[in-house]
């Protein structure tokens, strides 16, 4: 350690707690102690309740996903779906980051979850201005699962090169304009953009399929606000798992495995604490060997079961990990369809055509029966109808 740092940190050695603190300890826990472990009878009751909840969730999910239920969002060989931009606040994702710096002189036009107007928003991408359809905007500021989401849909022109580093992007809202530059960042749970550009019926193209991080940094009256989220470009006619992580947990590395058509895929969540705070830039994460299969594209037919194989958690903290799977649609309005507690036997999820959002919630138990939120994964599953179905 250098002299300068030794001196600075050494000053902390003078800090001591107050001298009578042992007396406080000796009086025993001052706050509500953790409840004792469940007794057998309570465990039985809890199990019955869990089964009832699971049955209700399953019935709800079946009602939503049954054959004569929702119309398939995507059909192979049909209309090419619009490019979906998913914005999940404070998620991290890879490849490309868009940093926008600018100043908005109009109230309510500052880019951010609270100030950006959903009614007037253009994105200049390359030389073409993309018009966002306000009708696609949905916002769930504090949904039942506590997740804040925003979503909007764009049709991009054939400006694939604009996604390269250094490309300039412009966001306009209510007359205020913000200029952006695409900056490549460290890759996390992602593969390279895959496939060619995706042609659209009107002659335009979608960029190559991949995952990108959109970050908007606005400056107003000296106040810097950073707003970011992954941009997911899904190729038609494929099944794809997209993994994001959220920066709320730092106490574990949950790993889940899934199998589709007998092909197993894994993904892990690493800590992302600090991401999005104070405008920090994402930094590379040490990925465990064999984990980064994110972005894997698999063909899957309607009705193919998706089997959750493993819900193991490698928690750095004490206690056990609990994993809960939620599934719903990532397409606005992001309705959550149900929740399955991933305990006990393997669960088979009927994968009907459509878009699903799998949210794997992980927490940990410590002490006697206290729970601490660890974090969650968000997995998007895109299922198409098989030919002839």
């Amino acid at each position, binding site marked *: *350690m*250098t*002299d*300068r*740092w030794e001196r*600075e*940190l*050494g*000053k*902390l*050695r*003078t*800090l*001591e*707690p*107050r001298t009578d*603190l*042992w007396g*406080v*300890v*000796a*009086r*025993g*826990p*001052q*706050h509500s*102690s*953790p409840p004792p472990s469940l007794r057998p009878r309570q465990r039985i009751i809890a199990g019955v309740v869990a089964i009832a909840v699971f049955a209700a969730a399953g019935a709800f999910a079946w009602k939503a996903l049954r054959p004569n239920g929702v119309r398939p969002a995507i059909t192979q060989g049909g209309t090419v779906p619009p490019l979906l931009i998913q914005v999940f606040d404070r998620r991290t994702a890879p490849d490309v980051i868009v940093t926008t710096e600018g100043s908005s002189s109009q109230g309510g036009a500052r880019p951010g979850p609270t100030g950006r107007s959903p009614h007037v928003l253009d994105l200049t991408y390359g030389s073409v201005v993309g018009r966002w359809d306000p009708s696609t905007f949905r916002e769930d500021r504090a949904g039942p699962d506590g997740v804040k989401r925003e979503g909007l849909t764009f049709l991009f022109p054939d400006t694939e090169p604009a996604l390269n580093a250094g490309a300039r992007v412009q966001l306009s809202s209510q007359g205020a304009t913000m200029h952006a530059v695409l900056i490549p960042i460290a890759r996390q749970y992602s593969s390279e953009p895959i496939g060619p550009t995706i042609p659209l019926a009107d002659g335009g193209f979608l960029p190559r399929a991949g995952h990108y991080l959109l970050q908007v940094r606005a400056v107003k009256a000296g106040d810097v606000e950073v707003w970011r989220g992954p941009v997911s470009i899904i190729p038609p006619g494929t099944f794809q798992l997209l993994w994001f992580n959220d920066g709320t947990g*730092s*106490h*574990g*590395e949950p790993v889940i495995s899934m199998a589709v058509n007998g092909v197993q895929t894994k993904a892990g969540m*690493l*800590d992302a*604490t*600090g991401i999005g*705070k*104070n405008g*920090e830039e994402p*930094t590379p*994460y*040490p990925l*465990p060997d064999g984990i980064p299969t994110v972005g894997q594209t698999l063909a899957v037919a309607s009705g193919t079961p998706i089997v959750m194989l493993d819900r193991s958690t*490698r928690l*750095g*903290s*004490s206690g056990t990990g609990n994993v809960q799977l939620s599934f719903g649609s990532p397409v606005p309005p992001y309705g959550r369809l149900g929740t399955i507690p991933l305990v006990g036997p393997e669960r088979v999820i009927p994968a009907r055509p459509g878009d699903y959002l799998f949210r794997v919630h992980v927490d940990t138990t*410590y*002490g006697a029966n*206290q729970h*601490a939120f660890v974090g969650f994964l968000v997995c998007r599953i895109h299922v198409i109808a098989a030919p002839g179905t």
Partner: protein
Amino acid sequence: MIVAQIERGLLTVDRTDAPDYERLFREESGGLFRALFVFTGGRRDIAEDATAEAFARAMTQERLRDPVAWIYRTAFRLAVDAHRHEHRFAAAVETTVEPPELHDLMGALRHLSPNQRAVVLLHHLEGFTLEETATRMGIAASTARVHLHRARTKLRRLLGDEEPSA
């Protein structure tokens, strides 16, 4: 390292005798308090409460394989709970009163996340290895490494070119 010796000693009596918590408190509470003080951005009250509460809860446990690590993790979680439930961290910048000699250092440390601050302190001041630091904070060693990397990068920018060596 003293801490390691203490832990080994406790492990040997784990199944037969309760740890000498008063001795453990004398030897460990200072380091834990400092870690929490930095973790909370200078909240002495939260740091003291969490330290005391963690030791008190440890004493109610029937058997702890690694009491020191358990106490550290519990104390960090208690501090986090204080943050989540009382939103006290947000007010820390305005309300914290700290010794004048710590003003510059704490000012720089507040630019780090709580976990980054704690990793820096446990690793560089208390002398724990990264693995030991991670165990005490209840995080993975790889995560601790990332926190340390970020903290060094940011502190180098904030306090000059000199930084703690690895």
